């Protein structure tokens, strides 16, 4: 039992090391300090989005609309508030993302629709709404926002600081407030949580609002970095976010995972993308590689879930005495 779970725990890290070796053998720039720092900065937006996704996955749900939320947030900031100060833009992104999350939460909670269907619909509707306002043209960030995206405080780039702040907030919620155990108890057994007195409906609502809001932050970070949002801005990020959380060890079947999972996973995925650029891989190979990473993440999770389920089965007689009688019987 323990050997398998230990192996599984370290599998993503081993994968990570293998990739680093492969990349550094094929590119002398990959392992440079500047590039490693760049990877961290590049991963900032994904860290924020994956942190939100992590809460949803922990509650045994899923949110496919985060990419759409990112796009709408960028469109709202770029077109709606071209001259606003940076903090207003940030607030606006949070709000827009939170509203999309609230729409998800309401449809899931009130109409009792499966999260998969609701958020899949929002994926298309959300992007459609964004495209309606942008008229499919590229949306540009204000000079002030673009400057902010490239600024730094004490030599730490702003995107990284924002990701760190998001991490701090998520850590508080998950590890220092009743919200964390609530979410995880719902993910393990929603009916059991209800019987134990957990306010399941309210917590689930908050989880989707939180995920939407963090997707809004992710959109804000990415928009300020690239200072432009094309019609495909944020596309596929729902899959990257889910893969990041799962690769880090959060389970797709709910309840299991930590605050560090999405962070590690997001950095891992960004490293792969960065490394592919560094070794001048064929750009058409990117989706193949990224897709394989997602597949590996899901596979590891499925194996983990099965071993866990076997370990948690209730027995009808004490296990120890059985093995003892066995040992004596067979000897």
């Amino acid at each position, binding site marked *: 039992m323990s050997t398998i779970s230990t192996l599984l725990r370290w599998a993503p890290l081993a994968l990570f090391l293998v990739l680093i070796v492969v990349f550094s053998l094929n590119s002398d720039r990959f392992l440079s300090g500047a590039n490693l720092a760049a990877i961290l900065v590049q991963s900032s937006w994904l860290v924020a989005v994956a942190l939100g996704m992590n809460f949803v996955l922990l509650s045994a749900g899923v949110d496919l609309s985060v990419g759409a939320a990112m796009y709408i947030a960028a469109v709202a900031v770029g077109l709606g508030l071209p001259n606003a100060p940076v903090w207003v833009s940030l607030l606006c992104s949070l709000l827009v993302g939170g509203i999309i999350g609230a729409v998800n939460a309401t449809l899931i909670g009130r109409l009792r629709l499966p999260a998969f269907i609701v958020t899949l619909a929002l994926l298309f509707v959300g992007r459609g709404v964004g495209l309606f306002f942008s008229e499919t043209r590229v949306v540009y960030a204000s000079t002030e926002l673009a400057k902010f995206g490239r600024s730094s405080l004490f030599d730490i780039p702003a995107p990284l600081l924002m990701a760190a702040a998001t991490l701090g907030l998520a850590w508080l919620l998950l590890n220092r407030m009743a919200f964390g155990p609530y979410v995880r108890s719902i993910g393990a057994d929603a009916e059991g949580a209800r019987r134990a007195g957990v306010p399941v409906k309210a917590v689930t609502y908050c989880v989707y609002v939180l995920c939407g809001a963090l997707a809004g932050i992710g959109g804000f970070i990415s928009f300020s970095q690239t200072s432009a949002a094309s019609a495909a801005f944020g596309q596929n990020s729902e899959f990257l976010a889910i893969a990041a959380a799962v690769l880090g060890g959060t389970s797709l079947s709910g309840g299991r995972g930590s605050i560090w999972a999405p962070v590690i996973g997001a950095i891992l995925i960004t490293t792969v993308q960065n490394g592919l650029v560094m070794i001048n891989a064929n750009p058409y190979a990117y989706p193949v590689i990224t897709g394989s990473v997602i597949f590996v993440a899901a596979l590891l999770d499925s194996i983990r879930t099965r071993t866990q389920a076997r370990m*948690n089965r209730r*027995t*009808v007689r004490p296990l120890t005495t059985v093995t003892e009688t066995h040992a004596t019987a067979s000897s």
Partner: protein
Amino acid sequence: MTGNAVRLEAKGLSKSFFGIQVLHDVSLEAVGGRILGVVGENGSGKSTTMNLLTGVLQPDVGTISLNGAPFSPKSRRESDQAGIAFIQQELNIFPNLSVAENLFLLNPPTQFNGLPFISRKRMHDDAQTLLRRVHLDVSPSSPASTLSAGERQLLEIARALAGSAQIFIFDEPTSSLTAPEADRLFEIMQQLREGGAAILYISHNLEEVLRLCGDVMVMRDGRVTLRAESAKLTPRELVLAMVGRPIEALFPEPRRLDETPVTVLEVSGLTTPGFLEGVDLKVGRGEIVGIAGLMGSGRSEFARAVFGLDEYTCGSVRMNGKVLPSGDVKARLDAGVAFLTEDRRHEGLMVNASIADNMALTALPMFASGVGQPIDRKRLLRAIVYIGQRLRLKSGDVTTSAVNSLSGGNQQKVVLGKWLMRNPRLLILDEPTRGVDVGAKQDIYRIFAELADVGLAILVISSELEELVGLCDRIHVMRRGELKTEFRREQFDREAILRAAFGQSSAA
């Protein structure tokens, strides 16, 4: 508060489910400083009564009062807040949370006065105190998934101690405890009792009940049949009060039997660590063999292993002399084994589909001339109608009426029909008449007898002792994953069978 006041009192509780009355006029008193033992067979109404007291269910008739004031809880939460701690048989431990998080899921100790930030340190310390009270030697920060079943039970008890409850209801708390763990629990119960708490203690261990409890009440068929001080009672009297009335004419005439029927199913030494231990069993042609035992004794696990749904580590299953590999359902189906699960709504039926679609499901390949060939719908429908008639299925058009429009009894007939379409040689029935009303039961029993008469081997698992006694040629008793005693029809003695299921020696 004085110790000997009546804390919780129920008067004339009755409850029906879907028109079937499961509780008749049940009254009880839980007195401060005393332990009341509650015993009875599975389905005798103990759990329903406790669910009424704790707000999980609401009574149709009858009143409850708490410390003298009327009390009608609408949810578990309400009774929790009123100071009733209910330690359920079905554990409510979240394996993915830590021990401390499980203990303080709803009311974690906070810091910075009023801010909702958990104080890890206080949570850790408080958890340690509670764990020490139940002598549970685990770290508060270790995940609950690392705990054994017994330790989880102790954790559940520690959670109940965390509040300020003055009334405790223990529903079979010792079933997953080792002997030393159970002793710890009894110690805690005595401490609570001396502290003036009122305790209700449900258990299948009769000696334990007599030793621990001041008073005992026995339930049968939703009624209280005996209420006395335990000092005046013996285990034998308790068993008698549990068994009760004679068998009604619900069952078919006893059948004449071959002295040595040809063996169809032969199970030997079946073992799954934690579930089954060296189970031997034979079922012959035309024989009906029953397995009695309490819920959680491993009966269903046994059936699942025999049918290949779960793997086993040792032993063998033979059909007509041929060994079937562990965990291979396909091999069982090919050998003519049919399995009616205890959960027919979730595992046995597509409730929204028509009767014909349900019955056709497992037999479809037999109505096509080969893989990829079209199905002969006419022949299929003829077979379905024929079997429906044989089962005396009361329904509308079999091709249009959905299964969920049928009564429980007719639904069970559809499941049975589904398997009969395949011409099985062995039927494994797990709780075949659960949720079936009395009239339909009689019908189903007669069908089973007819099937055995034409040579089917039948293995019945049931919590209803009367059903087994009325139907079977032989009865085995399962206890803690072991098949203990065998009774032949002429030796059937419900008292003796029940004693074997409860683990009482026949001398008691």
